[in-house]
């Protein structure tokens, strides 16, 4: 069989000495480039299939880049406070539920919840993060699953809901930055992660609760 590798990190591609590879400077998570753009995706595939004509190993750089400027944040409204007696993160989670349900109906549960928690224990997970930030040791806070996996489910809930609240398709990482920087739950998660790190929790336990550069 002939293989063609797609890769967005040139050094990683080169280190595996592949027979044929197309290095595309696209954001991580988008190896074909632009979602909902079949013409763009076909051009990438055409360039990849051209490598089959090579008579010896070849690594080619695709001639179009999609840079991430690191400053694009999703323009996405957040629900106004509804129940002032609730923690803001819990209030926010409840307010986003209709958008999440619509997005699941429209796209399916492609990136949403289901790794460690589901909608039934989402608020339990948020409550555990609140306890951690309030001083409860993380092992006693009642996180309903492996912390990084629970965090991915919470992030998936928000990034899925955002698909229905944003007027435009999110640029790469824009939804992630919106969640961690702009939402009550994202800020809570980062605070709980920092608290766990400061308390001496093993690095893999807290580190993978958010992207590694955050």
């Amino acid at each position, binding site marked *: 069989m002939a293989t063609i590798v797609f890769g967005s990190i040139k050094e990683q591609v080169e280190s595996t000495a592949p027979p044929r590879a197309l290095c595309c400077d696209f954001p991580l998570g988008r190896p074909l480039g632009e979602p909902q753009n079949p013409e763009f995706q076909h051009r990438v595939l055409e360039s990849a299939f051209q490598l089959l004509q090579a008579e010896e190993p070849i690594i080619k750089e695709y001639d179009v880049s999609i840079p991430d400027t690191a400053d694009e944040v999703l323009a996405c409204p957040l629900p106004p406070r509804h129940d002032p007696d609730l923690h803001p993160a819990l209030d926010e989670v409840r307010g986003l539920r209709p958008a999440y349900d619509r997005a699941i109906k429209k796209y399916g549960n492609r990136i949403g919840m289901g790794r460690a928690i589901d909608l039934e224990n989402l608020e339990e997970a948020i409550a555990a993060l609140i306890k951690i930030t309030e001083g409860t040791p993380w092992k006693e806070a009642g996180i309903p699953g492996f912390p990084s996996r629970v965090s991915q489910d919470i992030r998936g809930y928000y990034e899925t809901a955002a698909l229905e609240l944003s007027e435009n398709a999110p640029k790469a990482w824009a939804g992630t930055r919106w969640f961690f*920087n702009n939402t009550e739950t994202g800020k809570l998660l980062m605070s709980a992660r920092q608290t766990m790190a400061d308390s001496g929790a093993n690095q893999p336990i807290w580190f993978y609760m958010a*992207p590694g*550069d955050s």
Partner: protein
Amino acid sequence: MADSDIKAMTAQIPGVDFEETSFTNPVSLNEATVAIVTSAALHHPDDEEFTMLDIGYRVLESSRHDYVLRHWSPNFDPTGFALDINTVFPIDRLQELADRNVIGKVAEQHLSYAGNQFDLSSIQLDSGPSGAQFLKDQGVDVVLLTPV
């Protein structure tokens, strides 16, 4: 939180040293059966979940589009896949190429691994060759390898 920072973090992670590059000249593309192997930890909802150190693979059916992305790494943007599965797993694009006779046909089954692995020796020894044999038994000629 920037794509360039994540790429810089991972660029120097050592890969596997191969003594030689395996190189195959396939049949003509318009006669080739094409499959996708992704390291995005995709699977169907009723498949077994990938565990953290799971070196195995899941089979993805061309006829089903209910793929879910369950990678263990937080270090990539998942919303492209949420909007359009072809951003990671270009199954519709391949079918369009088959309909235009650019490729021979799309394999009925594809493979998915969880790319968040550090112990690569088990994949080299076991699940990698097993997956390759699975595809060869289907008559696959060309494989596209897509990451996240």
